[in-house]
């Protein structure tokens, strides 16, 4: 009982909204709903929900780097693409037997994280910050997109895997879990849904613990006043790098899940539009809180998809307008502002009673 209380205690703190039994009961209700929902829906809709979920990891990672750490990375899609292509190259070459696809997921995320260690080292130990960090990271994702776009010729291959230029890499095997009595192929969407949902819950809870730990304390201190944080004896570059690598690994996880979901990855997943969208999701939801980032991302993604029925260019314009309006009217983010408004109303009522 005591251990359980301590565990829940670590999930709460000044860096996250939502605390107390009320919040966690709500959390369990939503989770139960998410678990039951495929039973009442068709395969296509469930698959579409998996598609939404895959992006949330990248958004949560950006929330950590930008919302908590104060460093705007404009190039999260670089890690998305690196991990997606890595998964493709690994599984096309080595197949799906003996649960190799699961190993490939871990390896692909690790490759993205390793790239982030290298890049982040030069960025943060070179004291690059503010708008320059955004410019450098954006340039890198655009360079990767350009590079992959010109790999259409047959000479561009790694082992059996053709890179395929703008046509994208396809036909990698889906996630396969080895099981006595027949492998479970996570392709019919419902199985994949449960795996991705479980990952999402795991990552969400782990991030709650992380941002409310002493690491998270230092991270928000760096956002608020880097000089002061350093003059309290913290090597802020290490903390910035740590957050950057975790955020990149989450973007990589998004990339892998997206690739296994669609069995397809293209250079445009690292392009300008792709790079800009995560910023919109995270900013509109409320970047300085992972719960509002999660909700905001799902809401904006669904709205975006609904709008693309009327044409994708038109939907992008709406996204741009949404970003501008958020920055002007509710710079903390729509979900976060809404949540704190509700919190204040309830707080006041409790105060009156």
């Amino acid at each position, binding site marked *: 009982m005591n251990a359980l209380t301590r565990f829940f205690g670590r999930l709460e703190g*000044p860096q996250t909204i939502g605390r107390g039994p009320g919040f966690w009961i709500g959390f369990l209700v939503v989770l139960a709903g998410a678990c039951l929902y495929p039973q009442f829906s068709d395969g296509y809709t469930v698959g579409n929900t998996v598609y939404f979920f895959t992006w949330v990891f990248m958004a949560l990672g950006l929330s950590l780097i930008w919302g908590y750490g104060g460093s705007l990375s404009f190039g999260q899609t670089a890690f998305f693409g690196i991990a997606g292509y890595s998964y493709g190259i690994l599984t096309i070459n080595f197949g799906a037997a003996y649960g190799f696809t699961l190993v490939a997921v871990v390896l692909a995320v690790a490759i993205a994280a390793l790239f982030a260690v290298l890049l982040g080292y030069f960025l943060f130990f070179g004291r690059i910050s503010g708008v320059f960090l955004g410019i450098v990271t954006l340039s890198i994702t655009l360079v990767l997109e350009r590079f992959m776009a010109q790999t259409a010729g047959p000479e561009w291959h790694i082992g059996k895997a053709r890179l395929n230029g703008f046509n994208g890499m396809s036909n990698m095997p889906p996630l396969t879990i080895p099981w006595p009595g027949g492998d479970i192929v996570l392709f019919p969407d419902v199985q994949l849904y449960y795996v991705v949902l479980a990952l999402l819950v795991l990552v969400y809870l782990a991030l709650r613990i992380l941002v409310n730990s*002493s690491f998270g*304390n*230092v991270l*928000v*201190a760096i956002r*608020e*006043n880097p*000089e*002061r*944080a*350093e*003059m*309290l*004896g*913290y*090597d*802020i570059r290490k903390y910035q790098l740590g957050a950057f690598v975790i955020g990149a690994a989450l973007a990589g996880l998004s990339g892998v899940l997206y690739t296994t979901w669609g069995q397809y990855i293209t250079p445009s997943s690292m392009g300008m539009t792709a790079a800009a969208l995560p910023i919109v999701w995270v900013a509109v939801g409320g970047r300085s809180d992972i719960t509002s980032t999660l909700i905001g991302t799902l809401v904006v993604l669904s709205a975006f998809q609904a709008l693309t029925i009327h044409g994708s260019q038109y939907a992008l314009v709406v996204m741009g307008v949404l970003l501008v309006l958020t920055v002007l009217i509710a710079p903390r983010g729509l979900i976060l502002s809404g949540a704190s408004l509700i919190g204040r109303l309830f707080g006041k009522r409790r105060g009156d009673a």
Partner: protein
Amino acid sequence: MAILEARALNKHFGGLHVTNNVDLALEPGEIHCLIGPNGAGKSTLFRLILGEHSPSSGQILFGGEDITKLKSYRRIRRGMSVKFQVPGIFKALSVRQNLEIAMQHHYPPAALHAEIDRLLDFLKLEGEAKQLAGNLSHGQKQWLEIGMAISLKPRLLLLDEPTAGMSPEETHATGIMIQRLNADGMTVLAVEHDMAFVRQVAQKVTVLHLGQVFAQGSIDEIVADERVAAIYLGHAPEAAHA
């Protein structure tokens, strides 16, 4: 042995000689004030001591150890601490969280919050623990930052105009606070403009002028020095000799 020593310290920005061959030694346990007209190089000297600038030449010793090449955070970990001129606090975080960030690695988790409460009492901020630091009055912000600086239990506390923007009462209270810390053994180096404050706390005063040590002594000696009065009024003698 001096706790902090600057030896022949120089800093140029292009052709501008901002710190010019400065020798400075701080005895353990003293309150030492650094004064001088605007542009005398006080802030630059501070930044050199903190490692925010690296000197063009010269040496800095802390506790007898050469720290000239050390990064700022390493100097802090060796027992320096600083309060900036503009309150360097974490505005969007609560007062308690500000102190928690400063102290979290200095106390075991079980003792941390009791220590924070004690410090809040000392700073007279016990009623503001949940308040966002950005909502405090100016004087309270200054105290909060002093609190963060002293919570590291430094051997040497650097204060850059600790009373800037404070009322005379707040200034006096800050002086008493600094004297209490000093009584516990903390060495203090303060840049200060407020002469009433310097008179209240300083055991030794160094006057900087044009990047050089211009005069040094007790506050009474400095006040009696006509050359010092002259540089403050803008009639510096040609040859500055310490």
